[in-house]
């Protein structure tokens, strides 16, 4: 399928691009044209081949990859790898690791300029200051002498954008550049990129899995599945009137708000009173203590889902670790069923309260079978004999929608969504009253996310579970939570029923989070 955007002079033309890695045919004969001044969004779920396409375009193929194309060149015939950093630049998903940690920002920016443009260090530094200013890095001149770790994720991504623009490229390839960032930072960066595209006439290839991001920045969309482009067209048309069933299913998978249930008056199963956490200084040269949490109080009723939202570093994961019992507060206390958690034996606490973590790839022992992973909590928390435990493992798999044969597999053999189902089954094995879920769907594709949310909703209904649901994604929170707590700088700044909170936010932080929600055109869906 071919997508020709405008017939502007500057363009990269890709015809019949194939990428093979060993036996895997990752990209299967795709065509597109990237034109000056326009943004083409390449959308798809993990494994669809969108990042492979971007890397092939840059000539940055992973080892063992074979790339063939009928045409893969700029309009003057230059191959992209010969124009790297000069006429084509790229920014990546992980701003925290994409800058060299042992060189200053100035060194890294200037190296790019001097490599392609030559000239003095002084000229390179002036150019770096000019661009850092333009991309919104405050005190640009001072920043040149700083190292990446001294900056936030958003600032680092701005530095990377400045680095990409050092030599005034004609094309910018952006591979999920806002995925690792907070939602409010994401919106600012998308607007910045759109502004830079218009100002410099950049042709931009924007790779993302997030349709909200597409709606915000793209002129045209190409939807990828299994290495092929299944649908292309202008952004507004594809998002509002998709022609392909896969595009339709992606849009339908977006989380929809559900009306919250009130749990007023019920005795809390879990409550926190004035929690605080101060971490002692770390590092070999000493340092100052860090306060991660201040005076946090909350309560959770039976059958209730309590959302905790906030940006990275706001203290939500610290709060979760304390609620699970993995960390001790330096102030305040947690009560489980009215009893102080410090007085509860660890085993009893673990039986009542179980965690589900964000990363299903890191939270399961890779060398154990799923049966062994699920058997461990059964052995710890139940009196079942071997055959009863065997049967229970199969029941648990069925409860989370996995086939029986999954019991003999290792985590490696399962997809991200399947692994997260195993993590949920493991949490359920102890038959807890409370689940603490820390960003349980943020590492998953949108269609898998929808399935996991549906699973959690069903489990809460059937088992009368209570749940603390931590997320940075307000759309997900609206789809599952009854009540929401908003955190900022280690404090709880607002608390309300989910629908009320989004209808009439009182705190500026809540308003900022709400404003950062990216909506699709017309459909009104988030």
């Amino acid at each position, binding site marked *: 399928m071919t997508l020709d955007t405008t017939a502007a002079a500057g363009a990269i033309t890709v015809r019949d691009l194939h990428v093979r890695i060993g036996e895997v045919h990752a990209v299967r004969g795709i065509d597109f044209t990237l034109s000056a001044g326009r943004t083409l969004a390449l959308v798809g779920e993990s494994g669809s081949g969108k990042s492979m396409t971007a890397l092939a375009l*840059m000539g*940055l193929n992973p080892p063992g990859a074979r790339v063939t194309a009928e045409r893969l060149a700029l309009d003057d015939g230059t191959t992209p790898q010969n*124009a*790297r*950093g*000069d006429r084509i*630049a*790229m920014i*990546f998903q*992980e701003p925290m*690791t*994409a*800058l*060299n*940690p*042992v*060189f200053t920002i100035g060194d890294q920016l200037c*190296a*790019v300029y001097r*490599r*392609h443009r030559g000239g003095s260090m002084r000229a390179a530094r002036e150019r770096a200051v000019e661009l850092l200013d333009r991309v919104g890095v405050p005190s640009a001149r001072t920043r040149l002498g700083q*190292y990446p*770790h*001294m900056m936030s994720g958003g600032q680092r991504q701005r530095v*990377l954008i400045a*680095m*990409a623009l*050092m030599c005034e490229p004609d094309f910018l390839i952006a591979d999920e550049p806002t995925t690792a960032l907070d939602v409010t930072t994401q919106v600012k960066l998308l607007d910045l990129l759109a502004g830079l595209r218009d100002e410099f006439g950049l042709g931009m290839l924007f790779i993302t899995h997030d349709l909200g991001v597409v709606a915000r920045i793209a002129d045209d969309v190409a939807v990828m599945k299994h290495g092929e482009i299944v649908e292309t067209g202008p952004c507004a048309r594809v998002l509002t009137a998709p022609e392909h069933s896969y595009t339709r299913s992606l849009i339908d998978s977006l989380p929809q708000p559900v009306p919250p249930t009130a749990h007023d008056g019920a005795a809390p199963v879990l409550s926190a009173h004035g929690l605080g956490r101060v971490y002692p200084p*770390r*590092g*070999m*040269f*000493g*340092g100052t203590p860090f306060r991660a949490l201040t005076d946090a109080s909350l309560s959770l009723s039976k059958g209730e889902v309590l959302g905790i939202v906030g940006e990275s570093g706001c203290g939500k994961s610290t709060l979760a670790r304390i609620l699970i019992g993995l960390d001790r507060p330096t102030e305040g206390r947690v009560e489980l069923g009215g009893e102080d958690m410090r007085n509860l034996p660890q085993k009893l606490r673990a039986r009542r309260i179980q965690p589900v973590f964000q990363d299903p790839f890191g939270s399961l022992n890779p060398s154990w079978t799923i049966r062994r992973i699920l058997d461990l909590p059964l052995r710890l928390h139940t009196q079942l004999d071997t055959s009863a435990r065997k049967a229970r493992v199969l029941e648990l798999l069925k409860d989370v929608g996995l086939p029986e044969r999954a019991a003999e597999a290792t985590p490696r053999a399962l997809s991200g969504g399947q692994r997260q189902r195993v993590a949920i089954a493991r949490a359920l094995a102890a038959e807890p009253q409370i689940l603490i879920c820390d960003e349980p769907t943020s590492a998953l594709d949108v269609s898998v996310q929808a399935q996991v949310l549906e699973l959690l909703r069903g489990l809460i209904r059937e088992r009368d579970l209570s749940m603390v649901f931590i997320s940075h994604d307000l759309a997900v929170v609206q789809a599952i939570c009854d009540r929401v707590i908003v955190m900022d700088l280690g404090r709880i700044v607002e608390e309300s029923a989910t629908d009320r909170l989004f209808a009439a936010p009182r705190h500026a932080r809540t308003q900022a989070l709400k404003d950062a929600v990216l909506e699709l055109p017309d459909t009104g869906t988030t």
Partner: protein
Amino acid sequence: MLGFLFRRSLLALFVVFAISVITFVLSHVAVDPATGIAGDSATDADLAAIRVQYGFDQPLMTQYAGYLADLARGDLGRSYLSGEPVGQIIAERVPATALLACLSLLFALGIAIPLGVLAALHANSWLDRMALTLAVVGQAVPNFWAGLLLILLFGIKLGWLPISGSDSLAHFILPAITLGSFAMPALMRLVRAGMIEVLEADYIRTARAMGLGEGQILFKYALRNAVLPVISLTAVQFGFMLGGSIVVESIFAVQGVGYLAWQSMSRSDMPVIQAIVLLISMIYILLTLFADLANAALDPRIRSKA
């Protein structure tokens, strides 16, 4: 930073104290120092006289207190054999050992870094396998055997290099290769592992995406990150070399601290042995401190944890 140095100095003092206790007790309990001084033909009366003369008849605590008091004044005692001050004897031998250790380290790093980088760049190729084989052989062959083989080949058969003594720089070449080839494999493998990891890092991909040259990426961007753990290991290996020099200096008759240690041990010259052990442990402590400071100088993340 100053607090860090102060804490490390206190720790060093404690370690030196602990080592002085261990060496003192071991050397006085394991053997009778009087027998060592008097020799095998001494009579009981000779031994009794020596014990009184050197104070070995005093309780061990009293002897140690005296030793510690002397140590605090910088007095390491006198050799039982020559009667010369131990400080002076060791000072005469330090230059040869320092030269040997530095040359060995230069040899080890000179081979380990380029070979490690090459092995990482061509991971799993014949070159990598050859480097790995070299590493395994280097670590498996004992110093004394490697030394003897080098003497046979370069000293006796080819006659290119002197095989005994420490009169000229040429005398240090074979001992330095022997000592360095023992330290080199671990360093080489760490450089290789570090480079493989760093070359897969996101910031190297960024550098490639920005069109930087491959040489700049390898030797400026990647190597600087990959050598960070190598610095700590180098300090440890340098310490091992000081210990290993006892064997190597003996083989090549290099008039250094190691050879002195071997001579003193074979004659139970306890004050000299104790002083050498203390000296080597203090150098070890200083080396790890230097390694920490060098890491902080190269890695801004360590510096800013202040």
